[in-house]
């Protein structure tokens, strides 16, 4: 098996091959003066099983086109199979027509991956449970939730949050920042021994895109919030606005601590500053998206999905 990395998340790719006890196969990307790029595989892949690792986060179009070109080069060079590891699948929030006349961008990307004859895709925590159904090729849909559950139950984390680690889960609740994340929150609650959960309700103005979070929903009555420790769980943090507003509402209602767990660190706009200056206590993300140094902040903790990807590739 030969593994190639695109340019979006080299550190993750390097950790994956280290875990697998191998090395990245050489690939070179030349950038021309007009901004066009040319990829070149610097090793034979004839009759080989190949893997390409590329998250399609910002700059999303460049990362997708690079992925397409690498796959095109692998196929034209006679690779036996191509597995695309796309830890963060860009355009995944545009997975259906919200308003007449709109594009379904995710489908354009998926159809093209299929037409390039990719054999298999591995992705993490897709925004909607229906996304795997859009693929006509095999897709392994992995989740970072077990990783989060493990961290939440660790002594080290419990000691951070409370003086009485033994009793940690007793006063801890899960929070979905909007009603779209119910399935995710139910899975997480089950992993943590069916602890209670609540959701904050997000209203989005489709014209302006502005969000506001002012009320609760879900099985736990808001009257029981005082004194609780909240763990907000979501698939991604984009501008951070949702997380910050959700945490604000929770603290206004008597919650004593608020930690965030989200798989994909998109961190658009001023997200790092917004999160650091908010009343969120800690922010946990994974390395599906490489967080550049200038976007790191003291409250941020990054967990690694390397082991899970390595395991999926060995399977």
């Amino acid at each position, binding site marked *: 098996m030969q593994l190639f990395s695109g340019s979006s998340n080299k550190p993750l790719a390097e950790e994956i091959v280290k875990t697998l006890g191998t090395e990245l196969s050489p690939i070179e990307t*030349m950038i*021309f*003066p*007009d*901004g*066009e790029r*040319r*990829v*070149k*595989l*610097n*090793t*034979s*892949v004839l009759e080989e099983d190949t893997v390409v690792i590329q998250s399609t*986060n*910002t*700059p*999303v*179009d*460049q990362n*997708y*086109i690079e992925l*397409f*070109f*690498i796959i*095109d*080069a692998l196929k*034209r*060079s006679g690779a036996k199979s191509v597995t695309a590891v796309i830890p963060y699948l*860009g*355009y995944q*929030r*545009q997975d259906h*027509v919200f*308003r*007449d*006349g*709109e*594009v*379904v*961008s995710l*489908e*354009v990307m998926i*159809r*093209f991956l299929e*037409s*390039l004859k990719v054999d298999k895709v591995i992705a993490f925590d897709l925004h909607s449970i229906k996304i795997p159904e859009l693929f006509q090729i095999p897709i392994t849909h992995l989740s970072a939730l077990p990783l989060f559950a493990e961290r939440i139950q660790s002594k080290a984390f419990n000691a951070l949050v409370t003086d009485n680690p033994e009793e940690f889960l007793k006063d801890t609740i899960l929070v979905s920042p909007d009603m779209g994340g119910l399935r995710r929150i139910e899975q997480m609650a089950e992993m943590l021994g069916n602890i209670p959960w609540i959701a904050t309700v997000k209203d989005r103005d489709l014209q302006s*895109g502005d969000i506001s979070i002012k009320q609760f929903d879900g099985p736990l009555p808001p009257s029981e919030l005082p004194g609780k420790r909240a763990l907000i769980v979501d698939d991604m943090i*984009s*501008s951070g606005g949702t997380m910050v507003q959700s945490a604000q509402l929770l603290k206004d209602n008597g919650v004593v601590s608020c930690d965030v767990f989200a798989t994909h660190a*998109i961190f*658009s*706009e001023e997200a790092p500053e917004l999160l650091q200056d908010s009343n969120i206590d800690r922010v946990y993300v994974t390395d599906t998206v490489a967080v550049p140094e200038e976007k790191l902040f003291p409250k941020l903790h990054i967990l690694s999905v390397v082991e899970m990807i390595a395991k999926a590739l060995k399977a």
Partner: protein
Amino acid sequence: MAEQNNDKVYSEKARDFILLTGRANQPLAESIGKILKTGVTCPISIFSDGEIRVRIEPNLRRRKVFLIQSTSSPVNDHIMELALMADAARRANASEITAVIPYYGYARQDRKEMSRVPISSSAVASLLVNAGINRILTLDIHTEQTEGAISEPWDNVYGSYSLLPALKDRKMQNLVVASPDKGGFLRAAGYAKLLQAEGMAIAYKDRDLSVNNISETVNIIGEVKDKDVLLVDDMIDTAGTIVHAANFIKERGARSVRVAATHGLFSGEALKRISDSAIEEMIITDSIKPRQEVLNNKKISIVTVAPLIAEAIRRIRTGESISQALIL
């Protein structure tokens, strides 16, 4: 009389065609719209994380849709805008979707020039067809074989149609048309014939593929002494090749050296090189939206391809021949 008929067709509310544009070259799209007496809509906006959003508001049902987009720099974003507009148009039940691509990016990655590289221009064409495009219209595509990358119709028209009147205006004497490299000989021959040139010349260069955009003029075939020389090419990128050739020709005693090219990319040091060169004037088209510093460059003149592209769109819409009238 014919024009009156056109006015009637265009003034009907439910026209049978509609022009949409991406963000690459909106002024050109507007000019095309003006000639075709119709508005042009740009359906693109951008999410905060940089993802493109397309929403087409006009009704497209059973209409012929023309998506005008040069895939110039930033090339990947411009390609994706085009693909996503095609998907939205297809879902909105357009009867036919034509991608009008005055400048086609990645056109130079048209073959496996070495082992284990993609054929990027082919991959881009497949992406567009996959997204819903039924036909492609390009202007001076770098190599016409690229048209074979897809099985859908692909029309290619030439910038010479728009450049020739401007070139004739220059009233060049003892005109010699020159190609800056061996590959451009046929293009130069075409211009030479249309401009009734006195002669032709070819500059030779050896390009080392392993080194990026490095080129060297080594020799020239043809008589240029005391001639007005016109160098022709399909595109000006870093301008290294063309400036080498122009300076060499001037050193050989040419009276003047002009350059005509369809696509002005002007990457890297191109503008400075042109300013410092022996080139008297460079005439290009607006297939790529000229940046302000291009407009400011005293040696560069720009002619518009809007009438050519508008006429090609009109002919695609009505089913008339493109090759008979538009290819000189």
